[in-house]
């Protein structure tokens, strides 16, 4: 598994990720700091002296490249600096707590997406041209065309209004949720909204590649040996059918990460996406850049992880 080539490949990819993160966050950093109207333009500043002190406090009196260098070295040590709006609030711990919540929602969404998509795709392929297939195929195009916030709104409507007696508004606009132990519903409903459009794509891809694989000779051989049907489908066919499906995982991860910004705001989930959104409105540049850098790094690592799962699913692929 972990040959020298693989390690070399991982090393190269890590370098590219590092380069990407630095380039991207550097561009955002430069962009945000070169523009007029930073957080210190607010009414709380009464004198030039006060502003000078503030700038010195945040290290903003230094030249821009030095500021960025300080930020990056700090970030690599897990120190993302201090909030511009709420002075004294360290960004690192704040963001770490929110990242856990976002990760919970994101991973649930990922599991839901891949799980449901695969099951539906396999079922549709196995019963090709039956009414089950038609219903699932049509549903997948419909699902693919529904934005996550539309599905989220529908779920809110269904669970928050029509089934209100049953749910008692348990997840509906959670106020004061500290997020550490969100209930099942609080995590699950946003995750379903987040993952549904992508589940449709996964289902479509799985169906298409299952249909190709299921006709191959080795599948017929497996059947002829008298193996149980589900063994043939799951162990022989699905394993190979999954190879094309893995290509969607990269965009899927990006979609779930960025879609989180919308969904977390809709459901009031106190995660990274919501933090990003509020900070960008408050012009809390330090938090915006910190969250953005984390996201960029996360996406890079996720893509690397996806590429490495190829080797697990398809041993013919070597790096």
């Amino acid at each position: 598994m972990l040959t020298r080539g693989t390690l070399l490949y991982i090393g190269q990819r890590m370098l590219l990720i590092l380069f990407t993160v630095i380039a991207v966050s550097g561009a955002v950093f430069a962009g945000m700091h070169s523009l007029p109207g930073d957080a210190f333009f607010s009414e709380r500043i009464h004198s030039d002296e006060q502003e000078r002190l503030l700038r010195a406090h945040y290290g903003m009196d230094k030249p821009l490249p030095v500021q960025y260098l300080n930020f990056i070295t700090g970030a690599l040590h897990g120190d993302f600096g201090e909030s511009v709006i709420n002075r004294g609030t360290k960004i690192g711990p704040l963001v770490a707590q929110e990242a856990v919540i976002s990760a919970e929602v994101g991973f649930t969404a990922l599991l839901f997406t891949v799980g449901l998509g695969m099951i539906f795709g396999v079922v549709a392929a196995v019963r090709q041209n039956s009414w089950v297939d038609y219903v699932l195929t049509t549903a997948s195009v419909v699902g693919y065309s529904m934005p996550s916030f539309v599905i989220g709104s529908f779920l809110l409507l269904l669970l928050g209004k029509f089934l209100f007696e049953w749910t008692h508004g348990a997840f509906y606009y959670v106020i004061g949720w500290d997020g550490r132990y969100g209930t099942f519903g609080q995590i699950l409903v946003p995750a379903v909204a987040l993952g549904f459009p992508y589940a449709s794509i996964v289902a479509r891809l799985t169906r298409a590649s299952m249909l190709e694989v299921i006709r191959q000779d080795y599948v017929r051989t497996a059947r002829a040996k008298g193996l149980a049907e589900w063994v043939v489908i799951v162990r022989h066919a699905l394993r190979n059918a999954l190879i094309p499906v893995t290509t969607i995982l990269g965009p899927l991860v990006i979609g779930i990460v960025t879609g989180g910004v919308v969904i977390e705001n809709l459901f009031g989930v106190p995660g990274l996406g919501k933090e990003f959104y509020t900070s960008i409105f408050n012009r809390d540049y330090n938090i915006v850049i910190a969250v953005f850098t984390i996201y960029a790094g996360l996406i890079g690592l996720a893509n690397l992880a996806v590429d490495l799962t190829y080797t697990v699913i398809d041993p013919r692929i070597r790096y």
Partner: protein
Amino acid sequence: MSVVPSLVDQEYVPETIVREQSSLWADAWRRLRRNRLALVATVYLGLLIVVAIVGFFYTPYSTSHQGVGPIEGSFSAKHWLGLDSAGRDILSRLMIGAQVSLAVGLGTQVFVVSVGVVVGLLAGYLRGAVDSVITLVINVFYGIPDLLVALILVVVVANGKPSIIFIMIAISATRWMDMARLVRGQALSIREREYVEAARASGAKPGKVIFGHILPNSLGPIIVQATFGVPQAILFEAFLSFLGLGVPPPTPSWGSMAFDGTQAIQTAPHIVLVPSIALSLTLMAFNFLGDGLRDALDPRQKR
């Protein structure tokens, strides 16, 4: 289940062999017409375009005029799609929102195609160092959380009030890579074909090879890719509007209308349902059309 041709089918029957000649485009059009879903989608999109154009000259009520009827009023003869929380006519707002969505969706693709084709042709035709640099840039852009970049651009550069052109540019800036990669792949493969070699051998200049051979032969995939890009751009704009950072008010957009609706979801569900369904239907129509075009423009697939 493959159909094994029987001997009878292969028997020589003079009349059936001679077929009317048809160009690729006529062929594609014939195949597209046979795809019922794509046809329905085309009709829907045609109607939507008509509605959007009519919106320039006539809407039942002013889109920003508040209190033209009962607040959060439901569907009625005077207000076909009801009223929103400020007492504005939803049908009128939906019509103008269609303009925004279509303009963003189609306009973005104009940018994306221009950038993607130029960059892709450069990388695929020149290869070598140029290709390496462009591929690296593409990979860097793929690592960017697109929505977050667009949000930052909108708030920081456009001060939270972006023009519609600005939104198109912001979306294109994060969505040009698919097209560039596609064109690059096409160029790489087509430039090695025999007919291109023949053209080159008979003295064709690079410009002739690119614009006479590579580009026309990649047109099919480009069109399909652009068609799939339209709903993505519309969706992106809806996300921005839903977060309150799309087209600034008073111009209505489907995303911002849906957001307004979520605030009144308990009392008047139709406010969120109407724009959400309009949006979903439009995205679906573009996706069906894209599917249809892909099937129709793929000459290897004979049906």
